């Protein structure tokens, strides 16, 4: 019988469909019975959507315009 801790450990693999069927079904039955874990699952799904929508970026100080100009010059020279 799966418990709340199993949901916490496997929630991301559950969402990504990366679990074997028996485990997936076991977690599903726990979710049917446990409203806390249903809320937790929903919070993780929302977190993933937030990441996808907000698209946070790497810290980067590169002058991309200067880099593009450098590559452009290189291309004209080479091709």
């Amino acid at each position: 019988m799966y418990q709340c801790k199993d949901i916490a450990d496997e929630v991301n693999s559950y969402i990504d469909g990366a679990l074997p069927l028996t485990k997936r079904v076991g977690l599903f039955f726990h979710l049917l019975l446990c409203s806390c874990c249903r809320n937790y699952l929903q919070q993780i799904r929302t977190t993933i959507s937030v990441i996808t929508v907000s698209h946070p970026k790497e810290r980067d100080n590169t002058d991309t315009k200067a880099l593009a100009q450098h590559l452009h010059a290189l291309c004209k020279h080479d091709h």
Partner: protein
Amino acid sequence: MKFFFKPKTRDEQHLIQRLIDGDQHAFEQVVSEYHNIMLSVARAIVGEAFADEVVQEAWVSAIKALPKFEGRSSLKTWLVHIASNGAKSRVRRENRHVSLDEGWESVSADKFDNIGHRFDDIYAWDNETPEAILANEQLQSIIESSFQQLPALQRAALTLYDMEGIKMEEICNILDISASNLRVLLHRARTTLHHSIEQYQDNEK
């Protein structure tokens, strides 16, 4: 349900042709679109110190090889692979090793009793939709800062899978990690970001 991007569109073919023809704006477009993701991959493989140099070299290699680009993958995937290969060569030269456990703090075990039941109740968030969450500027800044504090491998996994929609198998190849390690990285990165949103929501109550 996860959506993956199609490998190549007509727009992309046009963009590649403009690059080959030496269109300055096309260069600005690809650099501004793909530099950050290439940097993310390089940092994950070779670390902060060498990543900038590796990505600059990757750009030069890519531009030189552009006329031979056959379009079997998307331009993004092709560029990411060039950055990844450059970073892997650099790792071999520098003999550097990035640990999967760098910066990871496990979910506190004291949240569960000895049979694995939660002690505390979990309630639905007040701001349920991503749009509602992101409408809050303070929360948006917390998410951004929390993302930037993740270890480089976790950031790269999250960027490639959740933001760029690249398939797991391809990501394992790019980052040179196993599928189970990728799942661990995604789990840790998402859990950390979930904590930062959760803490904010709890403090607001």
